[in-house]
Each structure stands twice: as C-alpha cells, then as structure tokens.
C-alpha cells in the first residue's frame, strides 16, 4: 500500500503545472485589461477558456491518482 500511495502522490504533482499555467494566464490577462479596459469582456472569455484547459491537466492527474488507488490499492 505504501508504494501505491507514493505513486498516487506523484500523479497529483501535475497540479503544480496547472497552478503555474493559470497564474501566468491571469497575470497576462490583468496586464491586458489594464492596458485596454474596453476589451474586458473578450479577455475574460479567453482567460476562462485558457484556465479551463490548463486546469484539465491537474484534473487528469487527480483522476489517474484515484484510479491508481482504486484499482491497485483496493484489495
């Protein structure tokens, strides 16, 4: 069980990448809103889409971790 838990923990490390990605995207979005406040709506839509796509990697990591625990650590 110990090594399986470790494997699941490594899979969840994908969250770091998603965090960095969303942080960068938000930084750029705030910058561009400050530069061009009139394009706020468009920027928000693009940011939301980008965040959802970047977040997906973290979600995949979570699903894989869960699958590792469920299929290997069950019995």
């Amino acid at each position, binding site marked *: 069980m110990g090594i399986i838990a470790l494997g699941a923990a490594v899979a969840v490390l994908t969250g770091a990448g998603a965090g960095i990605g969303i942080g960068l995207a938000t930084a750029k979005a705030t910058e561009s809103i400050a530069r061009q406040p*009139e*394009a*706020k*709506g*468009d920027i928000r839509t693009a940011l*939301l*889409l980008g965040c*959802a796509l970047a*977040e*997906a990697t973290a*979600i*995949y990591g*979570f*699903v894989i971790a*869960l699958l590792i625990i*469920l299929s290997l650590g069950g019995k």
Partner: protein
Amino acid sequence: MAEELMEQLDNHTAFVIPILGGIPVPDSCVVTWIIMAALVLLSIIFTRKLKKVPTGSQCILEAFMDFLDNFFINILGEKGRKYVQILETFIIYIGVSNIIGVFGFVPPTKDINVTAGLAGMAIILVQASFIIEKGPLKWAKSFLNPINLLDLVTRPLSLCMRLFGNVLGAFVVMELIKHVVPGGVPVIASAYFDLFDGLLQAYVFAFLTSLYMAEALEEEEHEGKKVKKAKKKPQLHGGK
C-alpha cells in the same frame, strides 16, 4: 474514513428492472429522470402564457434565452443558428446536474458513464454538423490529415475526463471538509465547489463543443473569415 469515501465514490444501483434477466438502473439514471421531469415541467410552466410584450417571469426567461442564443451565435456565426438549441440543452442539463448536489441528490455527472455519453453525443454532433454543412465527401477527405483522426479520440476523452474529474474532485473535497469541520465552513465551500465550479464546467463543456463545431462549420472559407473579423473589431470597441 478511507472506506467511507470509497463507498461514496461507488455508483449505487437504484433498482433492477425484472425483464431479460434483470436490467440494473443506476442512481445517476434515476436522478437524470428527475432532472428531465423538473426541466420539462419548468419549461411548460414558463412558456404557458407567452405574450408579445413580456411581463414578469417572461422577462427573466427571455433575457436568459437571449444570453444563451447570443453566446452560441457569436461563436458559431449566423450559419450555426440551427445547432444552437441542442447546445443550450447541453449547457442547461449539465448545469442543473452539476448543482443538484445542493438539493441532496447525487450529481449524475459524478458517474463516468454519464459524462462519457455526453462527450460521445457532443463529438457525434460536431461530426454530423460537418457532414450536413459540407457533404460526406469532404468529411471523409478531412481524415487524410491524421491529426483530425486523432482529434476524434482525444476530444471526447478530454471532454469526458474534464467534466467527470471536476465533479468528482469537488465531491471528494466537500466530503473531506464535511469530515474535518462539520458546521459552517461546508456551506461556504459548497457555494464555490457546487455552484460556481459546477456552472463553470457546464459553460466550459458547451463552449468547447461549440468551438469544435465552429471549426467544422467554417474551416475552408478563409476569405469570409477575415472579412468577418475586420467587421467585428470596431463593433466591439464601439459597444463598450
């Protein structure tokens, strides 16, 4: 604790239909029926006495539908108007099923089979719209590019996993919070994880489906696209 969580993750069978050796009906299916019934009932109630000049609840209904119509037509273009209804159905159904956890039901989207079905429907819709708009010959030709063939697998897989993972992740975090702090805090956390995240995922699902569809609808006419973009820009600046 761990076993309790694992038990929550399982998909329970609600009842078994006693024909053909018994067909098991899972919880997600029953909750989907409840959602369908509620949505159909609400639709009937709200569209019963429609007037030319809207008053009361009709104003809210029209504003909501206008918002959805504009959102999808902005992405698909005027050509995609006939596909707007099914995308709206997607966003309303997924939105409701994601936030139904608030009312004490098990969200159907927590079952991977439901999200897989939704993603499969979405990708069939995209391909069907491609065939309707451009004919089966061009559709078959598009697979000469192996990336398109790969997209046929990766797109539904990522749609399915994104929705499932998000709902399941929110569910697990909520269970953990309930376990650690039973009072007060779960209400605040639920507002984010159940309401905000659920609606956001419904939005993302429909948004991505319509983006794939827009790609299928107007891939070849580069000239038409450029003219449209040039027209769009000044409008945006003028509007805000």
